[in-house]
């Protein structure tokens, strides 16, 4: 903290113009340190991006040379492929349900944990554990079993007189079970929230309490504004991840996206087009639309963040 606080991020360190020889030498050294990354960025990121953009305008099956077909993949995607739109709607539904609920859960538990003194470390770790385990195929299989017909969730609900049956066989409910798996992994954003909450100066709450502010008032006027950068960070990160959900949808539907394409999330359909049907050009076009969509959503979030994200750095950073 001490070192970063005095020097704004990204700004150049104090000018060393007075010294002569070492400067160029250190430039060279920097590139040596950077060389693996540069190689990776060029060969495994930039080049593939260019190639996939090119492929998205071709018909390519991995065996014959790519055939240039212009915008055909894109027009087919948008106008002639109902399964594509199905995957878009499914993914959006999932994102809109899973991300806000996951963050709300994370924030609620973080706020509860903030005032806990005894056993805080235990709670923190226990709530965090699903975030690490949940990405695995093992847990996805558990999910499929407990949300299946006759599984624990079905039993519990019918015991309460709610008769849904197995979620994973019901279009509409199946994607909800995938969303619940994501919400279950609220530990990672929770830990970040908790760390953010602990950075809020206690004096703010004390002053507010002296002024007679209610809990809700303090939450609205202190906690949320002071936490907004962290909230924003979590929102962007979880959103980007949610757009790319794959494993649980694959497991719940045995890799097929069923029932009735109701769990055919975007990446599952992309995998299906590219690697099962060998339409690499089409899959590349899908990948580029996903890239643009994530770019647009992130840009919109950044744009709106100016209105609600409050950075306290200007007011209280100097003293630390």
């Amino acid at each position, binding site marked *: 903290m001490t070192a970063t606080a005095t020097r704004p991020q990204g700004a150049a360190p104090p000018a060393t113009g007075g010294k002569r020889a070492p400067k160029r030498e250190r430039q060279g050294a920097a590139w040596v340190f950077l060389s693996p990354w540069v190689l990776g960025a060029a*060969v495994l990121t930039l080049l593939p991006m260019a190639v996939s953009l090119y492929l998205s305008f071709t018909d390519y099956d991995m065996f014959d040379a790519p055939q240039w077909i212009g915008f055909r993949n894109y027009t087919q995607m948008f106008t002639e492929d109902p399964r594509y739109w199905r995957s878009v709607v499914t993914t959006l539904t999932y994102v809109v349900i899973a991300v806000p609920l996951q963050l709300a859960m994370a924030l609620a538990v973080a706020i509860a944990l903030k005032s806990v003194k005894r056993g805080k470390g235990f709670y923190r770790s226990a709530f965090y554990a699903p975030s690490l385990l949940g990405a695995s195929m093992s847990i996805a299989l558990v999910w499929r079993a407990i949300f299946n017909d006759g599984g624990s969730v079905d039993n519990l609900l019918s015991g309460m007189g709610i008769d849904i049956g197995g979620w994973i066989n019901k279009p509409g409910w199946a994607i909800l079970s995938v969303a619940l798996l994501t919400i279950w992994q609220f530990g990672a954003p929770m830990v970040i929230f908790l760390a953010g909450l602990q950075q809020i*100066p206690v004096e703010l709450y004390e002053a507010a309490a002296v002024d007679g502010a209610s809990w809700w008032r303090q939450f609205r006027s202190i906690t949320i504004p002071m936490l907004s950068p962290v909230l924003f960070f979590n929102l962007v990160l979880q959103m980007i991840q949610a757009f790319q959900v794959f494993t649980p949808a694959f497991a719940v539907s045995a890799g097929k996206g069923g029932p009735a394409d109701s769990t055919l999330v975007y*990446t599952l359909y992309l995998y299906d087009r590219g690697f099962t049907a060998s339409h690499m050009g089409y899959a590349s076009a899908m990948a580029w639309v996903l890239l643009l969509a994530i770019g647009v959503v992130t840009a919109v979030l950044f744009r709106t963040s100016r209105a609600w994200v409050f950075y306290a750095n200007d007011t209280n950073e100097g003293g630390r």
Partner: protein
Amino acid sequence: MTTAPISTAPAGPAARRRPAGRIALHACLIAVLLVMLYPLAWLLATSFKPADEVIASLKLLPSHFEWSNYSTALDGVNEVSVGRLLWNSLLIACGAVLGNVISCSLAAYAFARLRFRMRGPLFAFMIATIMLPHHAILIPQYIIFNQLGMVNTYWPMILPKFLATDAFFVFLIVQFMRGLPRELEEAARIDGCGPFRSFFSVILPLTRPALITTAIFTFIWTWNDFFTQLIYLFEPEKFTLTLALRSFVDASSQSAFGPMFAMSVFALLPIVLFFLAFQRFLVEGMASSGLKG
């Protein structure tokens, strides 16, 4: 690092509640926790259940422990033993850890502590790749590895890690290195250290917490990764545990449930052990990734 001693400070209005409030709070937290831990308990219990109890019985605990589930699971799938699958998973995960720790710390040192032309734009590009969906580069990467004859080997899972393609970890280590006082290197320079000496002897040892976090997260994420392995590996001999579980995805017969979840336990065990051993690094690493941005 130099945050106020949080644990002793009154933390908001809730801390001043009466004991009854505190007990209610703990009760709520424990209730939520029990619901959350249910799927894990279910997994463990089911791995010991005899076939007829998996769905017929509503009890969590099996009537008797069916150890044969585990011996069946040990035999593996497609005539590949669990030992072999475990070894394959380990090989990939350890290769990835080694690659990420080496390459990400090198790149992070350049970004955090050295000056060079283009640093700003390159850093911005590096940050942008954190947000880049994997799928945008997936197919050409596949074609590249296919051309190199590396499909159905472990190289597509390991090689990119040696080229610092996991920008998230570069960022994590950069954030950590920025917190180290600059005087360290100045002192080292006066003692005659070049950038390489001061990286290896001064900065790297101090960065150990961030490196450990990187190593553990890389291990767990690589171990759990399904998509990449699904695409690149097709020979059962080469399968990882995660991939082998896939063959159960199609099988819906209840008789396979016990062994399937026994195998799932094998697949989760390393993560659980890692988590228990390193939870402090994991939780703190996650917490700091969102804060000092």
